[in-house]
């Protein structure tokens, strides 16, 4: 039975939180070979994680564009 996109996306999410089994991985890879939408989804799981890291990183003076950074944003009103 072939994996569908719902199952594939669920596995890709779980892959962020636990190690997938070999057979899960094989089935997922097989699905991804044929499904562009899920390949994009796979890339985006990685993007979400690194964006969250960036979001969580406490602001520093070098990057004024992030939320909570030195030179102010929508949350802060330093003057």
């Amino acid at each position, binding site marked *: 039975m072939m994996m*569908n*996109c*719902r*199952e594939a*996306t*669920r596995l890709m*999410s*779980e892959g*962020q*939180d*636990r190690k997938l089994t070999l057979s899960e991985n094989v089935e997922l890879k097989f699905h991804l070979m044929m499904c*562009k*939408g*899920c390949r*994009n*989804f796979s*890339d*985006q*799981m990685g*993007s*979400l*994680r*690194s*964006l*969250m*890291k*960036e*979001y*969580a990183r*406490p*602001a*520093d*003076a070098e*990057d004024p*564009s*992030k*939320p*909570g*950074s*030195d030179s*102010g*944003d*929508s*949350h*802060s*009103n*330093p*003057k």
Partner: protein
Amino acid sequence: MTFAEPNSAATQSLLDPAFLKALRSQMLAFARLQLNDDQLAEDAVQEALAGALKNAEAFNRQAALKTWVFAILKNKITDALRQRYRDQEHVLAEEEACKNGEALDDELFNQKGHWHAEERPQAWNAPQKMVHDRQFWAVFDACLNHLPEKQARVFMMREFLELTSDEICDSASLTVSNLHVLLYRARLQLRECLENNWFAGTASGTTGVS
């Protein structure tokens, strides 16, 4: 309050009203997003700042001080979340996971479980470049705030506080499979929101989030 070494740059920073005010509002924004409770957020920020003042002399750079103050704040938030979950019934999580999940499922996938054509994920254009775009972060913030409360909380515990699945399950009284469902829903929805409101169409378009 007096300090042993009033010349320490970090101490000066914390005594500078403008810096302190800005830092405080940044911390509050973080804390509110996760605790969803103004009073708890205020308390966590207050405690973190008090802890920081006590040891400010050890830091001679503003950036190092900030990193450290936020590390304290993360701990306070984790404690507050643990306490809250201990106090409340966790049945709610299962209900929310099912209710919210089914609606989203139907919206994104057809009966065979494949993407509806118009919902199929598109390639994102250079997401790593967005970190310098203030408007992007406004959209990101709004998308996070649109997540259902429970999903948002476990997602932040996982991705912001970087707790392991076991730690989250432990403090939130969730089963692992329950947690995975909540995290899956959160990621599905956050992805969808970012694509609709940022990556699709003009990058500098509207910041309104639906």
